[in-house]
């Protein structure tokens, strides 16, 4: 078992999937010789050849549309958007085709594909390289949206996504690509989709997050622990469909909830979770829910991005506000 980074875990899962199932193909811009701009596909071309590790022309609607055609024709394509910010051109294909193929044909055809995209702020990148669009995808019926927050979960969830019989949008937090390492055994074991992962148990407050915000959330929980406050930390992991039951169960115990995301606030996953609490958790809430989100503004260029993203301080502030209540 090796200590590897999140991007290495993605690479490992891709290699494993290509190895185990000859219907798996990888496609996207620069995924071949270059190994991807983040090296997520490094070495795959050499091992599996250009027929299965495919450098495409620069055309995002093509990449997704082509993956759909491949999936319907019984391949298992894993397509890459170079950055989530360039992926909006494919929403049309995801929404109008990938998420509908099975329903449209009442089960005759299906669309088992994965659309990977690096996302999130904090790496001092140019415009459009820092967005976290999970909420847009989560609104789309017929797909899954997965957003891992650690090397081990990235490995297991990506394998699960590739093996899933339905389309999965798989968001990879670039800020975590090389932030820390974890032991990951290349055992081909998928991690369960559609469930929240409880990273830390606690009784005083529930902190909910996913993707790139999880380390900040854990850091906030550490800080709370120093003050004797036991925070439960949940990694949503699959943001659509959402495991609301797990969150409700946790909040039923703690009575308090802070939800953390680096996406703009309006209609975010944080909104969805808060709404679920307003509907089905109201009686268990001892304090108002707090969303700690990015602002409803454009992700700024790097000089201000630290002020755009929520960090440990804002999470702590919200948690204390909620804890101070009643």
């Amino acid at each position, binding site marked *: 078992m090796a200590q590897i980074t999140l991007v290495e875990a993605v690479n490992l899962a891709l290699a494993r999937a290509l190895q185990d199932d000859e219907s798996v193909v990888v496609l996207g811009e620069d995924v071949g010789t270059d190994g991807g701009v983040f090296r997520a596909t490094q070495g795959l071309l050499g091992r599996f050849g250009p027929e299965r590790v495919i450098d495409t022309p620069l055309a995002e609607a093509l990449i997704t549309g082509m993956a759909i055609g491949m999936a319907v024709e019984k391949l298992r394509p894993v397509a890459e958007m170079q950055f989530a910010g360039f992926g909006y051109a494919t929403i049309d294909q995801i929404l109008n085709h990938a998420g509908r193929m099975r329903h*449209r044909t009442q089960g005759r055809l299906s669309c088992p594909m994965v659309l990977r995209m690096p996302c999130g702020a904090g790496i001092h990148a140019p415009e459009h390289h820092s967005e976290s669009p999970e909420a847009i995808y989560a609104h789309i019926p017929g797909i899954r949206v997965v957003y891992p927050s650690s090397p081990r979960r990235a490995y297991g969830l990506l394998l699960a996504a590739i093996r899933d019989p339905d389309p999965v949008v798989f968001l990879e937090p670039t800020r975590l690509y090389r932030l820390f390492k974890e032991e990951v055994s290349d055992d081909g074991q998928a991690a369960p989709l559609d469930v929240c992962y409880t990273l830390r148990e606690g009784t005083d407050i529930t902190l909910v997050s996913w993707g790139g915000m999880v380390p900040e959330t854990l850091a906030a929980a550490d800080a709370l622990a120093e003050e004797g406050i036991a925070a439960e930390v949940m990694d949503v992991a699959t943001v659509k469909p959402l495991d609301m039951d797990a969150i409700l169960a946790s909040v039923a115990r703690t009575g308090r909830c802070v939800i953390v995301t680096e996406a703009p606030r309006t209609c975010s996953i944080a909104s969805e979770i808060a709404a679920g609490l307003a509907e089905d958790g109201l009686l268990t809430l001892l304090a108002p829910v707090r969303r700690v989100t990015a602002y409803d503004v454009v992700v700024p260029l790097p000089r201000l991005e630290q002020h755009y993203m929520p960090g440990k301080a804002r999470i702590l502030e919200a948690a204390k506000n909620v804890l101070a209540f009643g």
Partner: protein
Amino acid sequence: MTIVAKFEIRYSQYLDPEGKLVQSPPGFARDPKELIPLYRWMALMRAYDAKAIALQRTGQINTFASLLGHEAIQAAIGTAMDADDVLLMTYRENGIQLIRGVTLKELFVYWGGDERGSNFSGPRKDFPICVTIAAHVTHAVGAAYAMRLRGEKRVAVCVLGDGATSKGDFYEGINAAGVWKLPLVFVVANNQWAISVPRSAQSASETLAQKAVAAGFEGLQVDGNDVIAVRDAVDRALAKARSGAGPTLIEAITYRLSDHTTADDASRYRDPEEVKAAWKLDPVARLRAYLGACGVWDKAREEKLLRECGEEVQAAAQAFLDMPAPGAEQMFDHMYATLPAALAAQRAQALADREE
């Protein structure tokens, strides 16, 4: 100044508008009797089309897109393709679907507003009708890529309209098909109109065939009202694709003899004289004239055929009307392979509401 690249676009026709041969026919058409099956399909398409419009006018199906004028193109494609090739098409290609084994009833079910119509018994691997213009061009690239990767000798055939050639997906798709020399045949059914927008307002390109120049492969024009010309071009393009020599784009020139759909009123934007002139090019009458002149078709055969077609579409319509309505669970049960837990409550609510 040096010239670094040169291109030309060719046009072909075998039968003129009067149904006279203008050049010696390709092999499959040497014996005019061989064209009778194509004619039968074209007659069935027309009967189907008329019935669908009647059903729509009487509120028994929803908005319908007529294929009137497209019969030669569709008969040619439908008969040229192998069973295990794959068809990707729009709402206007029901005639090709019929030939490939989709039943008349299934088509009525689809237009009746029920997804079960796309779960057809016939060509199980054919794509469903693509309503978003040109999106299916990119799907065709993926499907053809999959076939070639597995070393199959299958071909993907992608049919689209003149309007579709303006859309980015079309171009991204043909460009990629060129890059990988995929086993793909694109047929642009140029019926001169995209709803109210005439061909001339869609692009300044002299032909739509030359769109293929941008993608680095062959584009050609055929008379889309001449079933021999279309069939010949499709045959060649299929053979080329199967041999590994890559894609072809065929612009088949015809005319949309109907309104865009039953929700449209083309008289708002189209000169009736233009439509009248287009009827002179009618692909069905043209082939009938040719078969008649060759002595392999006559009035009696025609009447019998029309009667048979009428009965067939009538029976199918009745079978459609007799079908039990879908239950609310149909909205849920194929959203995913397995219903996610998060959707269970919504499904239960929908079923409960339905019962009320």
